[in-house]
């Protein structure tokens, strides 16, 4: 399974495509997904970054993880052993977000120093340093083919940088947001941005349309579901909402956690069965996507859980609190069960 995922993650995802939207409508549950996150996740590895970890991200196949530190460095770790593989330093201020390309050859990261950096993974060299944002850059994301880097900044713009050409100007600047951009996600031809002005904007490149969903509270994080039919958005009113992508209707609302003032992450599990969110009370909350009930309250520590990332295929979770990254995995036999069931 892992080898499959290595080669073509998005195909893998497509194969696992179960529309969670339909499941919600029908109130049915897939048998495969029931037992996934109900049991506790087990802490397998703790990694110490140094400075506060601002974001932690899996790479495309989930074998490596990236941690963005406030110590201006970006670190690449192996997930299975927890070994530090490389440190990428070149930012002038704390690194806020990072993403890996689909072929694991490049990384991009953004920082409070208003710049976006494209890294070469192997050599650790800066391929390109992209400047243009007027404020600190909150989020960064490659597109599917790593031809474009999208970065959202506190200046209210999303800039689309071309990785193929030597131009230092962005291809396009999306300045529709009235306030800072807190989160950007790309799936295929769609960009999803969450802004502090309380709106989730979805740019459909193929249709040439911009859909704006009003959520009356500053957005901290947005996600696409794996099937691409839904959007997940967490906002500062301590609610995570699952919206239908095409109509904007709310399919689910997940509450209980505390997200009042900090920019914290939320995400969906690898098979769209659960919704996970960071919380300011030191827990990771995990809800059943269909039921909306809290299925797991994972205690991480005392401080704020700032970032989390779910493994693209397996039941594996990354969290970051202060200077540490935690890797959580399901019990080994359970994972094996899953693998067999999934395949």
């Amino acid at each position, binding site marked *: 399974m892992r080898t499959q995922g290595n080669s073509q993650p998005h195909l893998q995802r497509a194969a696992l495509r179960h529309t969670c939207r339909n499941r919600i409508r029908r109130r049915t549950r897939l048998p495969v997904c029931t037992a996934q996150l109900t049991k506790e996740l087990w802490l397998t590895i*703790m990694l110490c970054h140094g400075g506060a970890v601002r974001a932690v991200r899996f790479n495309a196949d989930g074998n490596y993880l990236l941690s963005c530190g406030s110590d201006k460095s970006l670190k690449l770790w192996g997930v299975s052993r927890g070994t530090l593989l490389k440190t990428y330093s070149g930012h002038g201020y704390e690194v806020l977000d990072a993403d890996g390309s689909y072929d694991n050859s490049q990384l991009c990261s953004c920082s409070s120093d208003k710049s976006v950096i494209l890294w070469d993974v192997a050599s650790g060299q800066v391929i390109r340093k992209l400047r243009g944002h007027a404020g600190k850059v909150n989020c960064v994301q490659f*597109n599917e083919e790593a031809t474009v880097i999208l970065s959202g900044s506190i200046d209210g713009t999303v800039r689309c940088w071309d990785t193929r050409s030597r131009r230092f100007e962005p291809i396009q600047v999306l300045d529709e947001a009235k306030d800072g951009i807190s989160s950007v996600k790309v799936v295929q031809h769609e960009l999803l941005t969450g802004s502090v002005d309380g709106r989730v904007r979805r740019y459909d490149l193929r249709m040439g*349309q911009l859909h704006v969903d009003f959520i009356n509270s500053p957005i901290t994080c947005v996600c696409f579901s794996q099937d691409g039919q839904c959007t997940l958005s967490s906002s500062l009113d301590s609610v995570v909402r699952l919206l239908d992508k095409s109509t904007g209707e709310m399919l689910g609302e997940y509450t209980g956690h505390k997200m009042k003032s900090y920019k914290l992450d939320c995400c969906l599990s690898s098979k769209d069965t659960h919704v996970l969110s960071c919380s300011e009370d030191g827990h990771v909350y995990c809800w059943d996507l269909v039921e909306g009930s809290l299925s797991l309250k994972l205690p991480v520590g005392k401080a704020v859980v700032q970032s989390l990332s779910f493994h693209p295929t397996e039941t594996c979770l990354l969290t970051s609190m202060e200077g540490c990254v935690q890797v959580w995995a399901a019990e080994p036999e359970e994972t094996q069960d899953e693998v067999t069931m999934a395949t």
Partner: protein
Amino acid sequence: MASDSEEDFVVYGTPLEPLDEDEPLKKPIPLHEQTVKDEKGRYQRFHGAFTGGFSAGYFNTVGSKEGWTPSTFISSRQQKAENHNARPEDFMDEEDFSEHGIAPSQITTSQEFSSGCRDEVREKTRAVISQMALIPGDNLLEELITPARLSIGVELLRRMGWKEGQGIGPRVKRKLRQRQKEGGARVYSCALPHIGSEGSEDDDDEEFAPENVTFAPVDVTPVDFSPRSGVQGLGYRGLNPGLALLGHGAAEHINLFNPESETRSQLFGNAQKTSRKGRISGQAFGVGALEDNDDDVYHKDSMTRYDTVLGGEEPGDGLYGWTAPQQYNNRRDTSKALSYLGKIPEGFTVALKHTKEKMIFPPPVLPPDFRPVHGFHPSLLGTTAVSPALRQALATSRGHMVKEEPQQGGRHQLDSSQRRALLGEDVLHSSSSVMELLRPEDRQRLYNLHNDSKTTSAKCQNAIHPSGSVTRSTVVSLTQPLPQSCSTPSSSLQEDSLASWRGVQSSTHTFRPFVKNPSKQARYEQFLSRLKHGDKDAVEQSLDPGMTEWERSRERDEFVRASILYQPTSSSLSSRFTVAQHQEDDDAVEVCRDEEGAVDNKQAAVKMKMFGKLTREMFEWHPDKLLCKRFNVPDAYPGSGVVGLPKVKRDKFSVFNFLNVTESREMTAPLKPPEMRKKSRWDVSEQEELDKEDELPTSASTASPNSISDQTQAQKRKEDDKEEQQKEEEEEEEVVVSRPPMDLFKAIFASSDDDSSSSEVESEEEDTKEGEGKNDLHPLNLFNVPSTSVTSSITSCSSQKTVVFSQTSMQEEFGPSLPPPSARGGATSHYSSSTEDKQRKKNKEKKVKKKEGKHKKDKKKKKQKKHKHKEKHQKKSKEEESSDEDSEGHVSTEELLKRLKSIP
């Protein structure tokens, strides 16, 4: 039998060797071994062209290693050297004699057997020899006496009884021959008249013809059975490029498709050679007697001599292609020429089909009571389901014909002075008048100037000032609902403008506000001229009756305001100021075509958790072309130059840019009872601000708030007092007149902006107290004119921008922030399970600590700032918490470690 017949077959090529079944399959020859070799096994090189190119190089030279070597001349007494004539063949390779060489050797018919065609090579050599002979004309004789040499075929025919001029074949009777003739003639049955004598002879002969006399068949020109080699059609022969370029008969158009054209036959090298042999012509020197004349060397061929279209116009019936018979084509041409009498210019032909006349339908006649806005049934209007925005839009669309009862209590229907009176506030003494921005001496000078040039102001006295009237009415009855002041401004403004323009005869330097729209400008000028004549309803007459009511009312307002703003100046002032030579280019503002709608409805929807249509908005968005390319997505709007949201250019100085039916505040006002609404300082200041700007478009004629207050305080003042005021007002007008009032606007805006930003902060504080997520303040409408019939679609973008910017600059400090970095470096190092050196860890700890120190410092600095936000407080409290929890942190890490250990 079968085998015999097989042997009879002619076999081409070499047969494949019979396959041996046992034999293992041969390996295919790899590509690099597939080479071309000549018969000697040498590599064939393809130099130059594939055929005829000389092959140069080591092994390809005359078959020897050395290549061609000159032979030495040896002649001795015993062995006299023979007179060796070198031929070109001596210097050629073997390949050159081969089929594709430059001198292919092939079997040809010898002269004896060849037909009558002349051997050109021999003729040429003979000519050369004759030239070289001692007596130039020598071999002329020789030519004369050449022995009659007949080809074998002719000789054989003669022996068989053939005579020259006869056809070949068995002899025929006369009738047959005649039929032959007719048959032959039928092919070209054009009007070749019979030669009389022959015809008559034929007729006559029919009777006399004896039965037993036979005739030889008619001689026929042999048909050329040359096989077709190309893919061209029958009868096509290519151009002879030499002839075509030399320009034979350049005057004539070369018609390739006309078989009888002379140039054509020349081009194709037909055998109709007009023999020029004996003729002496043209150039005296430089041309040999036997050489052809150099035809016009400097002639240039022009493309006009060629057809550019295949076949020209096709006949309508389609029976013939472009190879149609001559007369058919000709007839068509003449008929066409007859139908059109005028001179057809070169390169044009008369159209075959008449173009259809365009039907232009007149626009439908609108009924006199037509309104361009759809009216809803009154029952619908009455229900509460209709949104306030819609209701307002309907009300405005209905115009001012229908007088609606002004709503009680709605503070937005009240004037600023009314509100002030209601609230019992003092009059603002801020610098809101233009005049107060000027220095006192300047003001005095303007005043004097104005007095000098002032025309009769009797009308002005009568003209009731809008704000003046309002104040008076408020004083008279505070409790009374709003009088008809809503509609009065425009009418009174009209009077104003009438007063100011009347009697002005020549004003060459009037400002032209609508230069961008010539027709509008024309209408405006017409309006001005009417004004000068003292026409009462100048506006109505000069407006375009074709426009919709809404447009007309809008233009009416604009005209009246413009006429007041750009009044004719007094001579002294106009001599000082000139119209700018270069107008500013950027008097148009880019405005987003689609604006995000009102937030209130959405907020309500969010509260009710009714996500979907209510909270969703869809815009047309143009991605960049390159972005589409990078995403492997076809361009959604191919050919559109727009990127992002489509934008519309709006007139910067147009009043209607700034006018806005305020959405959020005004619409919610009727829903909520006024006492429920929190009256904050911000509210008040904003309203005042709105009022201030309210007057700006009409600022030229409005009195300053100062003067209004004077009025209210001492309302019983006499008329002369009022007159003075009037004068003051007119001074203001003068100031405005000489320049487009942008600077003036700016001056006022700047001051008010400062006010607003400070008050904004306060309001934000309040908002944050009320709840989270209120920090997106919505752009305030700087202008709020209650009596305008403007739809809500136009929003002032420029004003919005400024507000947004001020927001973002403040957003630096709030919005979702990042959690503080870890409180304790020691703790982190304690449970770090990574494989790092201890030394490095310690270094890191130090660094972390240092950083934290810095961080805290920063925060303290920030806290000292004047405007604090709630999140700041939260951060602070967070820090305190984390410091409190220091001791507890260890417990948690221990737990975690336990868990770690529990994992096998």
